[in-house]
């Protein structure tokens, strides 16, 4: 039996051998032509990436028609260096040495000449260093900068190599990323690129290749929100996943603002192409998706321009912001903040822009500016009090210009007083005394809890970072003032003063809540799901009361907003509320003194940026003493008294918030002028103009004037006015 089984076994092996021979014949004879073709066409050099085109950022056209480019791409060139020249590996060195040896043998005509590696290696190292020196001279780029790029790239690629080899059995050859070109000088213009190409000649160590950069089509429109891209140093490996989803050194990556928030959409995926004479595309790049913002370009540009004009006209204004929300689709139509800057010159002028602490041009006031809201919170507080049953709509309080004989420091803005006021008239006349009383009844904790409920004290979840603002609570008071909240704090909170701080965006969300009865953060990217909203829990009856009050504010001839914000041309009725929030001047220069820890001598500094100084100061924060020596705006003596009424006035932020139409609200508008002093006078005209523009664009009323076509023509006429800064 053994022999029988052995014969079977041998037969099995012979059949197996025949099978292999058959397969061999198949490959060598049957498919010979096919493989011969592959051998003559497959690349000896590996594949290279094709960068995808980054998605554009678009805004909607006037009235929501079509789209307009905000950020697009423009072609440029970059100078890229072969990776082994940055970080020579043993394989590349060995190949280089072999080539050098052959060359020397040919020169000396001795085919068997022996040249040890130790002789050639210093020559190669010298060549590499010389190459970097020359590169520095050619590109007029400081050598230190080139070396920094080189080191960063090396670091990233090395970590990739380590990661790839972590669970491999053999490290027999370099990985693909070690045989690619990485940019060291980016954003070259065509002229520069042509010059460089001519000078670099036919070197395989460096290439000048096309690339692209961001182009800001509409100047400073929405400049704060767009954000910035950067050439990344490359990303470190997070998983063993091959680089498809990560960054190669020198690729564009969104760094801030929308570019960062929408990075996943904008980026796209790179493709791959072979690098021989007949390059075949292995995979096509997938271009990034375009992002369409809900912003109406005509409205946004108009508001920015209008705000700039207003800030120029007012004596103390340092900046302004405005937010317009579409209440039917819940979309942001405009989000303006002035002063602005030109994003295409951001890098060039960065120091100038970031050190301008008078105008703060880089500061996005609409999202990050925290201001006391002042009287614009009165309608919603009143509605809540009625809804909760704290007061009846017809209950009146008596306003004599101040709260009571004992509490003279709680004044109304109108020294002569409003006399008997109910809720509607208190809103119409913006009576402080009425709301002081409401605050007393509601208690400070109740008011601050209500503010939390309508979204103050938390960032608005619109998908892009914004400030939380501040709603003072009992704990906050104890930790900051060393005492609990008193009735006085309740009064202040009820008129939107005290330690309350909100952003213009939060104000717009609040105004939408008054108009519709819902707390609903708007979206600002077309197609994104709407953030979750909720009813604010105020009865429709109470809301209608305060809407009536806001209507009278704007449309009655003795309303606080009538004089500056009432628009006769408007075909629909709008409602609004003024607000003048007292604010301290902003310190821009400090004198800091402390004891030097080494010499115990007192030291004094004049400091422009206190936060930065504290962060880098040699002594802990508690040992520093500082006082403001300069703050803006500085009020002139003659302005401390209102020339018309003779009342004394201090610095205040001017607010104007409203919506239109009163029936079926369509848009909510909030305007803020930093240090605009009086709400109606400073912010009212802007509100008026925005309302008219919205009517022209067809958002309210039925008299649409501006369409996509005539907007562009109109813009051509206005172009001088737009660029007058």
């Amino acid at each position, binding site marked *: 039996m053994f022999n029988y089984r052995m014969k079977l076994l041998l037969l099995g092996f012979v059949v197996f051998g025949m099978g*292999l021979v058959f397969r*061999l014949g198949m490959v*060598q004879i049957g498919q*010979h032509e096919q493989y011969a073709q592959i051998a003559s066409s497959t690349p000896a050099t590996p594949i290279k990436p094709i960068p995808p085109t980054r998605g554009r950022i678009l805004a909607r056209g006037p009235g929501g028609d079509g789209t307009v480019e905000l950020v697009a791409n423009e072609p440029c060139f970059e100078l890229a260096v072969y990776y082994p020249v940055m970080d020579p590996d043993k394989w590349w060195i060995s190949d280089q040495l072999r080539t050098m040896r052959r060359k020397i043998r040919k020169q000396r005509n001795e085919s068997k000449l022996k040249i040890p590696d130790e002789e050639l290696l210093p020559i190669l190292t010298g060549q590499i260093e010389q190459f970097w020196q020359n590169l520095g001279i050619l590109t007029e780029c400081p050598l230190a900068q080139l070396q920094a790029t080189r080191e960063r790239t090396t670091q990233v690629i090395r970590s990739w190599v380590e990661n790839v080899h972590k669970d491999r059995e053999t490290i027999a050859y370099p990985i693909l990323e070690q045989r690619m070109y990485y940019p060291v000088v980016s954003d070259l213009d065509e002229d520069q690129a042509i010059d460089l190409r001519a000078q670099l000649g036919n070197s395989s160590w460096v290439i000048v290749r096309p690339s692209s950069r961001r182009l800001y089509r509409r100047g400073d429109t929405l400049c704060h929100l767009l954000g910035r891209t950067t050439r990344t140093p490359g990303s470190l490996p997070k998983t063993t*996943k091959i680089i498809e989803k990560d960054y190669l050194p020198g690729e564009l990556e969104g760094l801030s603002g929308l570019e960062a928030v929408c990075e996943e959409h904008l980026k796209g995926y790179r493709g791959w192409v072979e690098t021989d004479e007949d390059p075949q595309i292995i995979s096509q790049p997938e271009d990034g998706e375009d992002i369409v913002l809900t912003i109406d370009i005509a409205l946004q540009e108009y508001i920015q321009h209008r705000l700039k004009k207003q800030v120029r006209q007012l004596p103390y204004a340092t900046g302004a912001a405005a937010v317009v929300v579409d209440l039917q689709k819940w979309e942001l139509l405009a989000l303006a903040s002035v002063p602005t800057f030109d994003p295409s010159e951001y890098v060039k002028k960065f120091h100038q822009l970031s050190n301008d602490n008078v105008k703060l041009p880089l500061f996005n006031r609409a999202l990050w500016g925290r201001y006391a809201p002042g009287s614009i919170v009165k309608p919603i507080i009143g509605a809540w009090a009625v809804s909760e049953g704290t007061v009846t709509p017809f209950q009146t309080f008596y306003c004599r210009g101040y709260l009571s004989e004992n509490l003279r420091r709680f004044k109304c803005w109108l020294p002569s007083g409003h006399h008997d006021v109910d809720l509607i008239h208190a809103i119409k006349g913006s009576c402080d005394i009425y709301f002081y009383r409401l605050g007393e009844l509601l208690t400070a904790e109740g008011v601050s809890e209500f503010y939390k409920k309508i979204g103050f004290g938390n960032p608005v979840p619109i998908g892009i970072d914004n400030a939380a603002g501040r709603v003072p609570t009992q704990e906050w008071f104890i930790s900051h003032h060393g005492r609990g909240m008193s009735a006085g704090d309740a009064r202040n909170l009820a008129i939107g003063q005290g330690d309350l701080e909100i952003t213009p965006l939060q104000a717009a969300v609040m105004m939408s809540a008054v108009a519709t009865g819902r707390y609903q953060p708007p979206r600002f990217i077309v197609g994104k799901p709407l953030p979750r909203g909720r009813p604010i829990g105020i009865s429709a009856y109470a809301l209608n009361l305060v809407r009536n009050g806001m209507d009278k504010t704007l449309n009655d001839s003795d309303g606080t907003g009538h004089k500056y914000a009432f628009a006769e041309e408007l075909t629909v009725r709008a409602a609004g509320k003024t607000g003048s929030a007292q604010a301290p001047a902003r310190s821009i220069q400090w004198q800091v003194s402390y004891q030097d820890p080494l010499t115990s001598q007192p030291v004094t500094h004049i400091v422009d940026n206190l936060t930065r100084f504290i962060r880098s100061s040699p002594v802990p924060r508690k040992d520093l003493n500082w006082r403001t020596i300069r703050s803006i705006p500085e009020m002139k003596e003659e302005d401390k008294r209102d020339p018309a009424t003779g009342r004394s006035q201090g610095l205040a932020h001017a607010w104007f918030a409203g919506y239109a139409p009163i029936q079926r609200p369509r848009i909510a508008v909030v305007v803020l002028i930093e240090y605009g002093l009086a709400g109606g006078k400073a912010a009212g005209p802007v509100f008026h103009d925005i309302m008219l523009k919205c009517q022209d664009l067809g958002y309210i009323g039925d008299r649409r004037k501006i369409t996509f076509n005539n907007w562009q023509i109109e813009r051509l006429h206005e172009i001088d006015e737009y660029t007058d800064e």
Partner: protein
Amino acid sequence: MRLTNTPTNKNNTFLGLSPASTAVLLGTIGLAAMSLLMMYAIDNAELPQSIVPDNIFRSQSIFMLFAFGVMLVMRSINYQRIGDLAYALFIFTLVLLTAVLVFGWIGQRVDFIGKIFPYVNGSCRWIRLPFFQIQPSEFIKITYILGLARYLRYRKNYRQFQGLLGPFALTLLPMILILLEPDLGTVLLLLPILFIMIYAAGAKVRHLVAIIVLMIACVPVFFANMAPYQRSRVVGVFLQSAEVRTWLESHPKVKDYVYPDKDLKQWKNSVEGFHLLHAKTAIGTGGIIGNGYGKGVYLEGSRKLPECHNDFIFAIIAHQFGFFGAAAVILFYLIIATGLVEIAGKTAEPFGRLIAVGILAILLIQAGVNIGMTLGLMPITGLTLPFVSYGGSSLLTFFILIGLALAIDRTHPLQIGPKPFEFENDS
């Protein structure tokens, strides 16, 4: 004292060798000569160092001479004496394997131990001694065959199912140790050897069928526990076809399981894909008569085939010598196989003939797997082509095994009575 007979009819012998030994030796020498020819050609081709190390012809010649000497020594030894040591040797290699694992683990943390037990390319399988280094997982091939043959001498050890548990225990221990290194190729080699040896020993067919069914049932478990790179190698065999790749791309769930973390579009540039494509291209461009010695795009031109001196040497042979040259290599193995079958058949003593069967199995399976891998029929496992691939450990192992076979052929124990170990009525 053992009674042995001496070769009887010297008239039929060549240099004192029986025809079977002559066949084995001829095949071996033919393959060794092919190996040296290849090393010389690759050395002269001036391939970049990323593909092959320098001076491989010289080192391979030295290895070859040494291994040949060892083979002659093995031939002169009485193999039955080794038989007495079979278990001891097996346990000794197991200890070495364990040491490699344990000290390799310590060596990653303690420097001077790490110099002796280096952690190379993600696995610890070497013991580095002054002047040379050894790889216990190579020598386990010898001692495993010896141990198994020793065990299967007795009928009760292969005729009963309980008896068959022994060989499996004997296989499982080294398998686990090598799996931990990890060295997948050697692990997968042990099972077919076991199977062929118990088959040849005379195990019942229904037992064998039961074992095969069990083994097939274990495949999914085994596959699930493989490292991603090992998994992608196994799957790589099927990914050669563009249809399979497109099918997988439309079934992402299956793709994520069998080929995780990688892009199918990039398959040609993955390690497996690159190897398989270029190995097949090198073979395919050979055609019927080949490009000629030292010629062809993979030696002279810009094409590169990594590991062409080692795992993929068959591709380079086929590239230079074409279909006939490559078929000749397969023929050499079959000649050795015939010789070994003859040796096994002539030896009535069960230990000796089972060793011969074991040698036959390991040689042919390893050669078959290597050639199959080069032709794109089997997963890339890192198994070398016996006698041809570059590398001392592999050469030494196979020359020792051939030496053992020759020793068995030389020493037939004296046979008392006709065929004492055969049971013709078994089935």
